[in-house]
């Protein structure tokens, strides 16, 4: 059998196999300890289904890892080997921005956080026309907030936390 390099899909299978192992370990060895005695006479335990799943998961990740199912290398929309040629920085920038948004949504309030997200997002993607960016971001934020809170009637704190102190 020829030796083949670990391609990305086999690396992924390897990681998934690790997840299945962890999951299986919990299901087989940790879960039944706290089981009430009357439950133990049941034909089905909370761990029965997870045990089965862990076996199937391990089996299939094994097949992928050792390339037992032959497949032609398919290059999808994006070839990961040429990742550095793509706009990786922008993608990472947007992900960081999303995390920041998640962290600041409550303290800054919906309006400030969202408007900054939209404006900074456009900035990260290379837009520099502030005169368009800012009005678009601000107006869109107000429209969405109006729709969500007035039409769909879901409350979202619009303003930063400090404005709500004392109330």
């Amino acid at each position, binding site marked *: 059998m020829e030796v083949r390099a670990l391609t*990305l*899909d086999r*690396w*992924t299978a390897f990681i*998934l196999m690790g*997840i*299945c192992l962890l*999951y299986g370990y*919990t299901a087989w060895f940790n879960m039944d300890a706290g089981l009430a005695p009357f439950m133990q006479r*049941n*034909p*089905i335990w*909370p761990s*029965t*289904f*997870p045990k089965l*799943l862990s076996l*199937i*998961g391990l089996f*299939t*990740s094994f*097949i*992928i890892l050792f390339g037992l*199912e*032959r*497949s*032609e290398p*398919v290059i*999808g*929309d*994006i070839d*990961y080997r040429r*990742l550095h040629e*793509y*706009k990786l920085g*922008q*993608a990472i920038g*947007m*992900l960081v921005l*999303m*995390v920041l*948004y*998640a962290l600041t*949504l409550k303290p800054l309030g919906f309006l400030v956080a*969202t408007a900054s*997200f*939209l404006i900074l*997002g*456009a900035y990260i*993607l*290379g*837009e520099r026309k502030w005169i368009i*960016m800012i009005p*678009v971001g601000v107006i*869109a934020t107000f429209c*969405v907030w109006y729709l*969500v809170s007035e039409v*769909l*009637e*879901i409350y979202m704190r619009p303003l930063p936390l400090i404005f709500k102190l004392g109330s």
Partner: protein
Amino acid sequence: MLEGMLIGLQTALSIKMLIVVIGGCLIGTFIGMLPGLGPMSIIAIMIPVAISMGDPAAALILLAGVYYGAIFGGSTSSILLNAPGVAGTVATSFDGYPMTRQGKAGKALTIAAISSFCGGTIGAILLMIFAPMLSSVALLFHSAEYFALMIVGLSAIAAFAGTGQVSKAVLMTTIGLMMATVGQGALFNTPRFTMGIMDLQSGFGFITLAMAMFALPEALFLILRPRNIAEVSNGDIKNLRISSSEMRSIAPVIGRQSIQGFFIGVLPGAGATIASFLGWAVERNIAKKEEQDQFGKGSIKGLAAPETANNAACTGSFVPLLTLGIPGSGTTAILLGALIALNVSPGPRLMLDEPQIFWSVIISMYIGNLVLLVLNLPLIPYIAKVLSVPRNYLIPFIMFFTLMGAYIGQNNATELLLLVAFGICATALKFANFPLAPLLIGFILGGMLEDNFSRSMQLYDGVAFIWERPMTLGLLIIAAILIVLPRWRAHRARNQHAEVADGD
């Protein structure tokens, strides 16, 4: 049945529902036109809106409208730009784009709209005939059969994943099922796999996962590799008329493909993409010699076939969802998740217990198709303007809507962090060519699968239900064949190939 239809008609024709259908179709067309955003992302983004409407019938009608609109929008960008927004409309670009290059964009759009309309409408008629039949059979099913049926559905989805992809699809399904076991289930009162984290007590949010699996990776891909979205000016789209001789030549194609597409759509795992490719190939094979050469170079038959088939298949995919409660595709899985969130459990009882939901959805399919034909077609030159919105503005908005969707559902900022984390994982899986739809389908079906499995285990005091109920056994054998067959055939083909090579 007639009574149910009348109730459905009454519900679907109310002003509110008409607005919902029209709005859904327009939004779907709008977003579906953007290359790279598939119907699953669009529906995932729309779910919070649908759920907060509170009315299950309205929610399902909205999402179904968005679904048709997205497919229609996808075919528009296939025809105008050769950039299919949706996998189901790739085949449309084979003949649609050459027609645009020949200056017949308007005609191509009209043919696409008429074919979609006919495919969707004939599909809805077939759905009306077959769904009640199937649900009366399904009423005989017990939990053991349901368990087996879900296994068949999941296996079929894996089996249709393509050569060399079956084990990946099975693995993804399994991971989805594993994720469904996280949290406190209904059957056992013990929290499982929460790792002591309180936020995981109620399990992963389905909307968060749907966004992370589809909308976020698609948006990231759009950032990573900007596609050239050509300018479409109004002048390009004119002369929407088609002649009656053209109509006569595509009529038989539409008739055949509506039926074929519908039945492919009913099969779990097949769906609009396979239906459209198969429709195009079948029509090319049975066309006359001189017409055959036209296929791929701007044949109107080659355009009508995939357009009819993909719409009929979309309608067909509602059959297993509405009658068995088992989704056959990623899109219907998301719809199922939305219904469960609204406390409606689709299945054979849906037609009896809540006829207004069942029938109003079917009636709204006719209305939706009509809306697409009479409202969206004339508006296409204006809707196509969305393609000229710069990506720098578009992408932050798409990302913001995914965030908003996950947040509205749970009102919890932790959910947003989970969304980003899962989104990164999903993008990595997409790089490695792991299919993501099976994961979500597994996740959504996981709870029901385990419930039915546990119930049968309790009733039969062990796994005896597998051989004591012939129907269960039969279904499980079908599931096994579905998984093994493609592998065995690939193996045999390789062996034959090797022998030929040796003989040379």
